[in-house]
């Protein structure tokens, strides 16, 4: 048994090394290349750059705080009502923003809050002489919350779902009020996962590019990601690009360390049965409040998407769907996305199990550096810009293979790596809870290895695995960065096609393709949910 278990840290180590190679290899090869060239760019750490760094941090921190702060009441309300018509659909919709290319989301948001949007039309209708102006920090935060509030809500909710049924029973018997229940039952669980969720959102926002420039209103709103792109793309100043990437990594690590200290998980052993059933009955006032929160959250997420759907429906969908190239792009996207999701799940599972193994072994001692790396280190890949990874690997591989033949492998592995932080956060709560519940029992009964995986772990894991797969795949479906870099006509994904149409006046086509992309993700979420429930009922 010991021999079987000791493979976990090894697998975790390999997964971590893989992530490090993908990001670190690119950075290293760029750094070596930079040594051959001019280093002038390094001297340019001027006031412009400090302003950029300051703004980058400010917008990312604010976006993170807002997203998380708004997600807590939303997740709380959704959890308080585990059964109502449309709940499952809401949760599926909440997975969609992630898969939308930034440009599509920006246009969706302006169709609601823009100068010619729904809000402006309502103001006009009411005879008010107000034109909403979101360009600036407002627009950036609006877009970032649109992207991340649903994500945060889903992640917090999955944490809440791991609260044992008996806790609710007990709280009901003790006659706890809503507030005490939140404080004593929900908050500890939320808090435990909050650092991880907040750090994920922070990393998504710190690397924001299209949203920040397009909705930022001018060059005052510039992120480091823009500066990295500028130095690598327009100035071809590799040294500066590497230095800026390291600065971005440094800032992120500082914030992640702070977050992980602030939100140090409380160690609790769950040994009871969990279920999505509650025994408390919210008062009428609470019910009203919850309904309001859910409706507001839903509207916030769905309106910009509805804007996208409306423009999508205006497109000539039947012609679009009659195009061979569109179907080819859908197929390519699906294959790449499924490959990336599978790889991502493998890596994440290795990380999650290894971390839990180490955490269980050390018991109450503080976590070691390896465990911390398993926990957060792998996420750092998110803040290495795709253009840096692409250029680095291009340089590294150009003497050995045809870089174009490498494109599919790169797209799959980079997308997989980028999805790991998500899959990790979806899998970890379930795995940790299940492990602490089963470890001792399994040890007592001598259940280990394959039989434990089949009988004990698989039933608990299949649902989160399905959700994580769907999330990772949706994320990869919407990705564009890596493919654009390797530049190859033979691999055309759906977002690639979308931006290509957008870039040549075919705005309607682009809207239609955005609709197709959204429907594809929705279908994916439904299949994942169905598959998971069928598996559950099948037993």
């Amino acid at each position, binding site marked *: 048994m010991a021999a079987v278990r000791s493979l976990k840290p090894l697998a975790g180590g390999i997964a971590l090394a893989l992530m490090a190679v993908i990001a670190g290899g690119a950075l290293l090869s760029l750094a070596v290349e930079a040594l051959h060239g001019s280093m002038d760019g390094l001297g340019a750490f001027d006031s412009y750059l400090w302003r950029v760094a300051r703004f980058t941090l400010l917008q990312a921190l604010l976006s993170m705080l807002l997203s998380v702060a708004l997600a807590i009441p939303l997740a709380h309300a959704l959890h308080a009502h585990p059964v109502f018509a449309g709940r499952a659909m809401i949760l599926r919709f909440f997975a969609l923003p992630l898969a939308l290319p930034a440009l599509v989301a920006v246009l969706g948001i302006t169709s609601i809050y823009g100068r010619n949007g729904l809000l402006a039309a309502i103001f006009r209708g009411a005879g008010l002489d107000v034109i909403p102006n979101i360009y600036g920090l407002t627009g950036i935060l609006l877009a970032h919350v649109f992207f991340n509030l649903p994500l945060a809500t889903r992640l917090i909710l999955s944490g809440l779902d791991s609260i044992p049924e008996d806790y609710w029973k007990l709280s009901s018997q003790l006659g706890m009020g809503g507030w005490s229940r939140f404080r004593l039952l929900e908050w500890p669980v939320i808090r435990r996962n909050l650092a991880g969720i907040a750090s994920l959102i922070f990393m998504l926002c710190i690397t924001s590019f299209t949203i920040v420039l*397009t909705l930022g209103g*001018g060059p005052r709103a510039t992120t480091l990601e823009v500066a990295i792109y500028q130095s690598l793309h327009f100035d071809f100043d590799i040294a500066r690009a590497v230095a800026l990437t390291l600065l971005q990594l440094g800032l992120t690590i500082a914030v992640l360390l702070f977050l992980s200290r602030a939100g140090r998980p409380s160690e609790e052993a769950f040994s009871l049965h969990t279920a999505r059933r509650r025994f408390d009955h919210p008062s009428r006032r609470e019910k009203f409040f919850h309904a309001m929160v859910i409706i507001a959250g839903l509207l916030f997420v769905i309106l910009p998407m509805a804007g996208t759907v409306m423009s999508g429906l205006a497109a000539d969908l039947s012609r679009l769907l009659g195009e061979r190239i569109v179907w080819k792009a859908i197929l390519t996207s699906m294959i790449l996305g499924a490959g990336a999701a599978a790889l991502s799940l*493998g890596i994440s599972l290795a990380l999650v199990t290894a971390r839990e193994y180490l955490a269980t072994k050390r018991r109450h001692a503080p976590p070691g550096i390896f465990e911390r790396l398993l926990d957060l280190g792998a996420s750092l890949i998110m803040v290495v810009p795709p253009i840096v990874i692409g250029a680095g690997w291009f340089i590294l591989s150009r003497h050995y293979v045809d870089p174009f033949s490498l494109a599919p492998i790169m797209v799959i592995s980079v997308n997989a790596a980028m999805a790991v932080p998500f899959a990790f956060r979806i899998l970890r709560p379930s795995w940790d809870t299940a492990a602490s519940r089963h470890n001792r029992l399994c040890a007592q009964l001598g259940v280990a290895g394959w039989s434990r995986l089949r009988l004990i772990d698989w039933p608990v894991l299949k649902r989160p695995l399905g959700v994580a797969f769907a999330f990772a795949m949706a994320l990869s479906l919407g990705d564009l960065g890596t493919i654009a870099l390797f530049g190859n*006509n033979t691999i055309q994904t759906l977002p690639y096609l979308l931006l*290509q149409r957008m870039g040549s006046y075919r705005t309607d086509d682009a809207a239609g393709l955005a609709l197709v992309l959204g429907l594809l993700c929705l279908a994916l979420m439904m299949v994942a949910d169905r598959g998971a429930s069928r598996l559950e009922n099948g037993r």
Partner: protein
Amino acid sequence: MRLLKTFMNSAILMSALALVSAAPAKADGKLTIYTYESFTAEWGPGPKVKQAFESQCNCTVEFVAVADGVALLNRLKLEGASTKADVVLGLDTNLTHEASETGLFAPHGIDTSGITIPGGYSDNTFVPYDYGYFAVIYDSETVKNPPASLKDLVEADPKQKIVIEDPRTSTPGLGLLLWVKSVYGDKAGEAWGKLKDRVLTVTPGWSEAYGLFTKGEAPMVLSYTTSPAYHLVAEKTERYKAAAFAEGHYLQVEVAAQTTNGATNPLSAQFLSFMTKPAFQDTIPESNWMFPAAKTSAALDPAFDTLVKPAKTLIFAPEEVAKNRKAWIDEWLSAMSL
């Protein structure tokens, strides 16, 4: 174990993917052309150009497409002397100086007398294949008095907004920067300081700007004089128009050249020469939406006659752009960030 399985799964998927992507056919000769994506898009000039050239060269044309002209030059710099490109198509005159400094390009050695570019163009390495002018496009339904000059644009009512592109990340953005510089010279910073209030937002690329414009977020956008031709020909609408500026319009010339490697392939020069012929030039107006650099076999669609004809052509020498680009962008940055 699980990892291994996933790897195997992805290997299977990968081979499935190889089936999806097309395999290039074999022929006697092969010409590899690096270009930008919109050139090879199915509605772009690429497919027609490939067909037309292949029918007369007994060879296979292989396009390799990257995002844009700037990425094209970067790709070449990254590949250096070992590049597979015979011909690079899609640099613009703002990049040619930097491109020749790499030493990766060879003189074309072809007859370019058929080429006419406003203001003239002669270079023994780079061959122009099309050109266009930057212009402010406005929505005639909301803008009744479009600006008649750059001065108008800078000084009129700041409530009427324009979306522009960022010179740090996009070619049209750099175009506007050079346009303002060529009109205002040393006073460009002040002009930007005034124009700033009129700028609704600065987008990373043309797509975002034009998307916001057609959504009605702003009544004006920086694009090309040829943009209305697309709306006229493809959408049959006269709604979007280009504003003619009294000071003249800034010119963008797109060029191609053979690499030093490509110079050993006779097909390269043959292609550059083909580029100046009607068979190539015919594809340009209605698929690249630019003006052809040489004769086409028939007159252009009447829509092109309705477009703004610039009173004056403005353009900086490539060396001047290369030398000053950073300083001018810094000037723009500090004026726009106030």
